[in-house]
C-alpha cells in the first residue's frame, strides 16, 4: 500500500511545475494546495494570483471553498480588481496558470463550455471563467484532469481555452504570442507536448499505472516521449510539506 494517495501524488506533481519566484494563477482545490507545497519546498518566493483580485505569498490558513472566501482575503499580498490581475496576465507578468476542464484534446485545447456544440448543446458547462484568459496569456499552462477516454479526446467539441489549436504553428498563427500547455497532470500520468506539432505525449506514468493502461484511457493514439519513466513518488520532504498544509487529511 503506497504511503500517499493518487491525489496527493497529483498535488506534488503539480507543485513540481511551479518554479521559484514565479507568479502563478493557482485556482482552488488541488492547485492551491500544490502552490503551498511548492512554497514550502523548492519555490519559497512563488506568488499566487486569484482572478477575483488577490495575490498571496502563502496559501490561506483555513480551508477555502472559493477564492473569494474570507481566509483568502486575510493576509493577502494585494487586494485589487479582476482587471488588474488579469491585466498583468496580458502584460506578460504571469508565468504559469493551473486550469481544469471537462475535455482536453491531443493539442491541449480545453473545453469548459459546451458538450455537443454551442448551437444545441447536450450539456451546458459553466464556461470559461478566467480559464480562456489564463490559457491564452500565461507563459505556461498546467492542466489538471481525470484521465478517462471521454475527457482526453482527439478533438474537443468547443475550444474554450486554446492550447496548440490544430498543432504546429497554429497557436502563434492565431495571434497568441506566448504560452501553451506545458503539462497535463492526470490521476494516471503526466503528458507533455512533444515533437514539431506539440502533440501531447506520455511523459511519465504514475506508480501503479502502466503505460498501456494510460494509453487505453486516452481518447487518441497516445505516443510516448523517449525516456518516459515512472513519475517519481513524493519525497519525504514533499509529503511533510503537504501534511503541514493538509492538516485535516482532505487529500489523503
Amino acid at each position, binding site marked *: 500500500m503506497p504511503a500517499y494517495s493518487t491525489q496527493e501524488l497529483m498535488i506534488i506533481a503539480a507543485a513540481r511545475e511551479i518554479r521559484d519566484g514565479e507568479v502563478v494563477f493557482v485556482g482552488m482545490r488541488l492547485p492551491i494546495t500544490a502552490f503551498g507545497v511548492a512554497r514550502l519546498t523548492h519555490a519559497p518566493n512563488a506568488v499566487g494570483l486569484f482572478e477575483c483580485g488577490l495575490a498571496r505569498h502563502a496559501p490561506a490558513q483555513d480551508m477555502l471553498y472559493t477564492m473569494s472566501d474570507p481566509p483568502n482575503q486575510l493576509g493577502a499580498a494585494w487586494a485589487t*480588481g479582476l482587471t488588474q490581475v*488579469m491585466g498583468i496576465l496580458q502584460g506578460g507578468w504571469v508565468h504559469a496558470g493551473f486550469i481544469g476542464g471537462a475535455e482536453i484534446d491531443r493539442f491541449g485545447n480545453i473545453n469548459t463550455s459546451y458538450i455537443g456544440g454551442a448551437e444545441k448543446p447536450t450539456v451546458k458547462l459553466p*464556461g470559461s471563467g478566467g*480559464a480562456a*484568459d489564463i490559457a491564452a496569456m500565461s507563459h505556461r499552462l498546467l492542466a489538471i484532469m481525470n484521465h478517462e477516454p471521454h475527457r482526453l479526446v482527439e478533438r474537443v467539441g468547443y475550444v474554450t481555452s486554446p492550447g496548440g489549436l490544430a498543432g504546429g504553428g497554429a497557436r502563434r498563427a492565431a495571434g497568441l504570442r506566448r504560452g501553451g500547455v506545458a503539462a497535463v497532470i492526470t490521476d494516471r500520468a503526466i503528458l507533455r507536448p512533444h515533437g514539431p506539432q506539440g502533440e501531447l505525449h506520455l511523459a511519465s506514468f504514475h506508480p501503479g499505472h502502466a503505460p498501456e493502461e494510460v494509453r487505453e484511457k486516452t481518447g487518441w493514439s497516445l505516443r510516448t516521449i523517449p525516456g518516459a519513466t515512472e513519475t517519481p513518488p513524493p519525497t519525504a520532504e514533499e509529503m511533510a510539506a503537504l501534511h503541514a498544509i493538509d492538516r485535516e487529511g482532505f487529500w489523503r
Partner: protein
Amino acid sequence: MIDKLATLQQAVRDGIGDGDAVVLGAGLEAAIPFAVVFELIRQGRRDLELVAPISDGAADMLFGAGCVGAVSAAWVGNVSGGLGHNYRRAVEQGVPRNVVVNDYSNFSLGMALMAAAYGMPYMPVRSLLGSDILASNPALKVLQNPLSDEADPVVLVPPLKPDVAVLAVQRADRFGNAHLWGSLGVAQEAALAADRVLVLADEIVEPGVIASDPNRVVFPGFKVSAVVHEPAAQHPSPMTGIWKRDTEFYTDYHRRSRERDGFLAWLEEWVLGVPDHAAYRAKLGSRLDDLRIRGSALAAPANFAAS
C-alpha cells in the same frame, strides 16, 4: 447631498425594470447581492440580461425562476457543485424559457465593462484568440492591430453598458458613499459603467466614517441611485470581514435544484414564501449567527490629517 435610503422592495421596484441589463456578481464569489436576486424573483421581473464575470449560484436561481432573457457572462454555475442545473435546463431544454447566451471570459467581460465605464469605443485585447468564444459571441471582432506592420490580430471587445449595477458593500452612508474592501472583482468597472447603482449596505454609518478613508471608496457616491440597509444581503456568499460563506446552503441548493420540482420547492421555501430579507434572516436564525465573523484583524492605521 441627497438621502438615497430605500427599502429593498422600493429599490428593486424603482431601480430594476423588465428587460434591464443588470450586474449582480461583480464581486465574483464574494458580496453577491442575493437579497436583490430573491426580491427580483418575488417581484416577478422578466427578460433581464445578466451581466457577470462569474456568478456563484445567484444567476442559476434567476434562470430557474424565469426572470432571465439573456446572459453575458464568463461562468455560470455553483462553485460548490459545479454545474448550474437551472442554467442547464434553460440552455439545453428551454425550461422554463429559452435564454440567449453571450459567452465571455473573465478578462474580456471586465474589459467590456471598463470600456463602458470609460466611454471607450472598444477595448483591444490579446485574449480569446484561438478560442471558440469568438465564434459563439458575434459581438467580439478580430482585427489587425493598425499600429503594427506585422501580423498582429487583436480582439476588439465592445462596451457592455449595464442599466443597473447592484453592489453589496460592508458599509455606506445614506447619501450613497460606500466602503468596500477585500478582493474587488469588477465592482469598480460595473459601478462606473452602469446608468444606475444600487448599493446594499451591511451597515449604515455616519458620512464621516466613509469620508475618513476615501481610498476605500471604490465608486463615487454621485453614481449611486439608492442605498438599501440589509445585513447579510449577500448570504450565502461571504462578505470580507463580516460574513463567512454558507457552503452548506449552496450544497443544499445544488442538490435540490437538480430536478425542476426540487428547485420549485426550494424556491417556495427560501424565496417566494419569505416576504422580505428580515424574514429571511429570521428563518436562518442561529445558522446566520454562526456565519458571523467575530474575530478582529484590523487594517493598520492610515493617517489622512493635513496639518
